């Protein structure tokens, strides 16, 4: 699989860094800051200290202009670093959007007068096509808009959207009828009914999504912002009331009171600037990680929900098992050698292009070294729903293979009968979850071929991992309960739904949801749409119908059902990153108090220096060190915000213990070290 080059960008690409730097400067305006209340407070603090510092330069009654201006400078840097984090995160999306936009050229569509191939057409600009119009797309044309194929079949290059270079087949009817505007027809022709309004096509939505232009905050992000705003307000009250407290204390104790720049510094250090600065970058980075997995989330809400999911409905075919059943053994009838059976089976399957047929040929070659032969005068009898058999007529031989019942009646017609040993074998294979195919030559039954679903390598371990994380896996299959149970056991899923109809799927989702579970599923067909709409996280295959894509809240551009597992991981990682940085940010406050409080009131109560456990050089260097640490920690954490914290598939209790140790305890300890180091550096440079 070859992804478009834009999908694997390095963390700090020069091409991304430059526009991000420019963008971050632009966002120093108050209008841009307004949307982030925490950083807006910092912005106001920066303006206030700058004004105070500049006034102090001229008015000698005001103290320490150099110190005030140094604080102001670092506060501006804090705001700028926050802008930079956001601009960097958005920059990656923008680069991806630019690549997508190149696919969205204005083309002339061949609008048909009548909705059938062969009708006359008029050229209409693609952005004037309205829903319901029918267009003809021929080899070499770009599909002008999203639509449904109503006639014809064509191979289509969808690499502009999926990054997948191999062309795909699009045809009328069935589950492969959706075409996307901006893709290109490589061969043949199709007649397409337009289903999307101009500007609302899949590609438009995708561009808006990756650009972050329409990025609305997710519910959890809003909830977290509410908490951060509340904390900011509390600390605002703390710092504002500290002025009268300090004036009262100074009056009583006879010392100097705390100055406004120091209070601003304290406020900025206490409010959760770290998470406030990185919050939106984390969200954007989550979307962009999803996109790198080639999954297009229709909203940030979906990414968040992916982390919450605790029941996965997985289609058996393609997700749990390899696409098709494969032959695994030949069981000859009494009096027949295995070699004979294999030879007949191979002969009957040579012209059979189905995956099952091919797997029989492969097995015969592996086990009995039977090679493919040139076939002359061989008449192939294809499978039909009526006979439920396929086979070859080669001179005197009339080899048939098919379901046990079909073959039994076939040989009975010719005067033969099915040996009991074969019947018994057929029953055993079915009970074990396999599919028996009986082979007969004329009236003589030769034996049974055992076909089995091959469970994908490593999938059992993956499910075990999910189980430890508290996620249940449910296999959905059209097989009978017996077969389903055997495969379920082999794959290690927690539960299965056999002989599943779309209605069953919907009912199963509702049942899980009513028991308090959040359900994720994948689907591609139109009949999956109700279930997709009901599920909490619904990944539609890009190859699927537009109904399925509309119903889902994510589209997997690779159309790979196993992707659901990755989707869950990305969702969890984004939430973990958000939580870890919030915890870190709040835990930081303890050290900042120890740095600033003794320094702030040094003039009133010198005794408070006893609280200065870091033994900082001077009150001014202590406050400045805290402010510098507060700014630098944002830059240091940008890579973590964009990359996400290390993800491990562990039970919640273990994850909590680990992350609490790293980000909670780390958040308590790190600033003590950081502030001390910065203080040493400032002192060494005679800045403190």
């Amino acid at each position, binding site marked *: 699989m070859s992804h478009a080059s834009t999908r694997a960008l390095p963390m700090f690409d020069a091409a991304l860094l430059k526009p991000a730097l420019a963008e971050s400067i632009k966002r120093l305006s108050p209008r841009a800051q307004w949307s982030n209340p925490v950083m807006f407070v910092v912005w106001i603090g920066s303006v206030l200290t700058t004004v105070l510092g500049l006034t102090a330069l001229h008015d000698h009654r005001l103290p320490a202009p150099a110190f005030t201006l140094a604080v102001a400078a670092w506060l501006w840097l804090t705001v700028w670093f926050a802008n930079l984090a956001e601009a960097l995160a958005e920059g990656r999306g923008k680069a991806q959007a630019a690549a997508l936009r190149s696919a969205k050229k204005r083309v002339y569509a061949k609008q048909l007068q009548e909705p059938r191939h062969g009708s006359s057409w008029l050229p209409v600009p693609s952005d004037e096509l309205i829903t319901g119009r029918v267009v003809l797309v021929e080899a070499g044309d770009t599909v002008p808009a999203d639509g449904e194929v109503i006639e014809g079949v064509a191979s289509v290059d969808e690499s502009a959207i999926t990054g997948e270079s191999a062309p795909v087949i699009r045809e009328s009817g069935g589950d492969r009828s959706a075409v996307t505007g901006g893709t290109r027809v490589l061969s043949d022709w199709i007649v397409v009914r337009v289903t999307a309004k101009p500007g609302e096509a899949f590609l438009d939505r995708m561009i808006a999504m990756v650009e972050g232009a329409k990025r609305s905050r997710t519910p959890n992000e809003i909830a*977290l912002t509410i908490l951060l705003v509340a904390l900011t307000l509390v600390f605002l009250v703390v710092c504002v009331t500290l002025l009268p407290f300090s004036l009262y204390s100074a009056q009583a104790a006879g010392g100097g009171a705390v100055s406004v720049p120091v209070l601003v510094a304290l406020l900025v250090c206490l409010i959760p600037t770290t998470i406030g600065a990185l919050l939106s970058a984390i969200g954007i980075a989550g979307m962009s990680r999803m996109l790198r997995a080639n999954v297009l989330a229709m909203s940030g809400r979906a990414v968040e929900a992916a*982390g919450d999911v605790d029941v996965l409905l997985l289609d058996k075919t393609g997700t749990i098992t390899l696409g098709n059943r494969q032959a695994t053994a030949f069981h000859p009838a009494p009096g027949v050698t295995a070699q004979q059976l294999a030879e007949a089976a191979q002969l009957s399957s040579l012209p059979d292009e189905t995956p099952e047929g091919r797997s029989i040929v492969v097995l015969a070659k592996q086990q009995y070294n039977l090679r493919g032969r040139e076939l002359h005068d061989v008449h192939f009898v294809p499978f039909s729903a009526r006979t439920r058999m396929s086979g070859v007529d080669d001179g005197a031989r009339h080899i048939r293979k098919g379901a046990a019942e079909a073959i039994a009646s076939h040989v009975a017609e010719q005067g033969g009968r099915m040996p009991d040993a074969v019947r018994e074998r057929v029953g055993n294979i079915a009970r074990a979850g396999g599919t028996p195919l009986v082979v007969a030559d004329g009236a003589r039954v030769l034996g049974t071929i055992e076909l089995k679903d091959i469970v994908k390598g490593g999938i059992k371990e993956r499910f075990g991992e999910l189980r430890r994380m508290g996620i249940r896996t449910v296999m959905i299959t059209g097989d009978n309960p017996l077969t389903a149970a055997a495969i379920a056991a082999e794959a290690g899923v927690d539960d299965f739904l056999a002989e599943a109809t779309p209605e069953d799927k919907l009912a199963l989702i509702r049942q899980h949801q009513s028991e308090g579970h959040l359900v994720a599923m994948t689907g591609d067909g139109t009949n999956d749409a109700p279930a997709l709409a009901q599920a909490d996280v619904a990944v539609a295959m890009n190859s699927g119908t537009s109904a399925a894509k509309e119903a889902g809240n994510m589209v997997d551009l690779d159309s790979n059902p196993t992707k659901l597992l990755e989707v869950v991981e990305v969702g969890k990682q984004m939430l*973990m990153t958000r*939580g870890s940085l919030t915890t870190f940010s709040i835990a930081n406050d303890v050290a900042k108090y120890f740095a600033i409080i003794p320094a702030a009131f040094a003039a009133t*109560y010198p005794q*408070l220096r006893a*609280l200065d456990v870091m033994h900082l050089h001077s009150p001014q260097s202590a406050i400045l060190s805290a402010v510098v640490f507060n700014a630098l920690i944002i830059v240091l954490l940008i890579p973590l915000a964009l990359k996400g914290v290390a993800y491990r598939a562990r039970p919640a*209790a273990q994850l909590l213990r680990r992350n609490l140790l790293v980000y909670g305890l780390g958040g308590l300890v790190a600033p003590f070290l950081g502030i001390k180091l910065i203080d040493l550096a400032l002192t060494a440079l005679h800045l403190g």
Partner: protein
Amino acid sequence: MNADPWFQMALYLVVLLLLAWPLGRWIDGVLSGRLSRRWRWVDKTEGMFLRLAGTNANEDMPWWRYAFAIIVFNLIGVLVVYALQRLQQWLPVNPTQMGAVSPDSSFNTAVSFTTNTNWQGYGGETTMSHLTQMAGLAVQNFLSAATGIVVAIALIRGFARGRAEGLGNAWLDLVRTTLWILLPLSCVIALILASQGVPQTLAGSATIRTLQATHYQVPLKDASGHAMLDARGAPRMQEMTTTTQRIALGPVASQEAIKELGTNGGGFFNANSAHPFENPSPLTNFVEMLAIFLIPAALVFTFGRMVGDRRQGIAVLAAMTILFVALYAGGVVAQSQPNPLIAHLGVSGPSMEGIETRFGTVASMLFATITTSASCGAVNAMHDSLMPLAGGAPLFLIQLGEVVFGGVGSGLYGMLIFAVLAVFIAGLMIGRTPEYLGKKIGMYEMKMVAITILAVPLLVLAGTAIAVLAQAGRAGVLNPGAHGFSEMLYAFSSAANNNGSAFAGLSVDTPFYNVLLAIAMWFGRFLIIVPVLALAGGLARKPRLAVSAGTMPTHGPLFVILLIGAVLLVGALNYVPALALGPVVEHLMLFHGH
């Protein structure tokens, strides 16, 4: 009684938990209606009281109806207590002929007793008639406690119910709580106290002849009531002598029982539980301490039962107990140090200033820690006179938001707010959006939590700032400097957190403090209760999610640590600068020289 601080604490906690566990079951039985289903007469009695109030128990109230009922109920309470104080000179059962209480003091006291604060700007035995004490203050002691309990129960129901609109019936819950929980328990406790010598009488005061004549001075006043000044501007004093003493008596035992049991704390006498008639013996001291924590601890067990997972209750209880033990230890250590200024004078041993010698340092610190952990505010020692950090520990406990056991009901709902907060901050770290007890914590929930964490610090800090800035505020301070600042900070912390204990040393019976503190008490109570009920309503509507290995466990030691961290970080970070200017610097000045 053994003076070893650890033995006393351990004995206390063991007895407490042994009593709280069955009471927790009982509360669950009463408020989930099992009791009235079992016995018809219980059901009939409840129905009778509801009919008296002109309502019935049929309505399952949505949160806003529940909140409306609670607020109306409490507003009526304020009016009744206010009226009783203003009119007491014309009302019966006033053997000592107490006059009307001033409007501002009446307002303050009415709000104070209705909000379960029991801040007292007055001296009980010299201000209130027996009728006011019994029909006003003692009744509110019951009803404010019932209010706290039903709000906590409503929040628990929010967690326990799924896809439900209602939180229960506020009137029914209030009736059940008062009749079957508070009344029987306070009867038992009142009898124990009376058996130990606590008075229970409607008589006025006893007049006795003293053993020796007492000489004292009173300032001379002119005809208009102003103090007459001498040439140097000092008040002119008149020498007085007396050989009789009036000893105040009254229905003390009944009021004392609910004072502790309902974590009210408003004493019959000014000296509160340091008074020998309120707290005559080590046994009554122990019983009173037990009574303070009994319902708060029992409610945590009730919580575990009602949400269907007792481990959840035990985790919350563990967090409370650890915080309690830690702050008790801090207080004991601080108070056991000799005061260096007194040690200079050759006096050895721990500082005894403000300590009732009958109880000693340990029992006083245990009582002080309990009364400030719970939002009780009864005192058996004068917190103002404790060593700086020993007085700082109770102040800090109050500022944590009264969640270490806390007030009846209010302690639990306060702690559950912190639990929601802890889950919200740390819960994301497991890679799921936060949930507590199977309920997702979303925007709406965080809005309510945000209001509760904002309201009290705002009231405390803004109130203190106004007091510090206003002439009327500074005028009340008897000890300027860091200690005076501590006194003002303590007053507003105590009021807004509905504790009601006083640091004393601050003249608060002035219109300025009476009004400002009443505002702090009212909003400190209902700016929490209303959002808590709104939160409960939101939670009840949500489905209860299933628990799996992917759910953040909220019952293990890790969660206990997390909860403690949330209480300390979010609850206390707000006050660190203010504390630094109060008790902390006082301590440093005392021990490291001025």
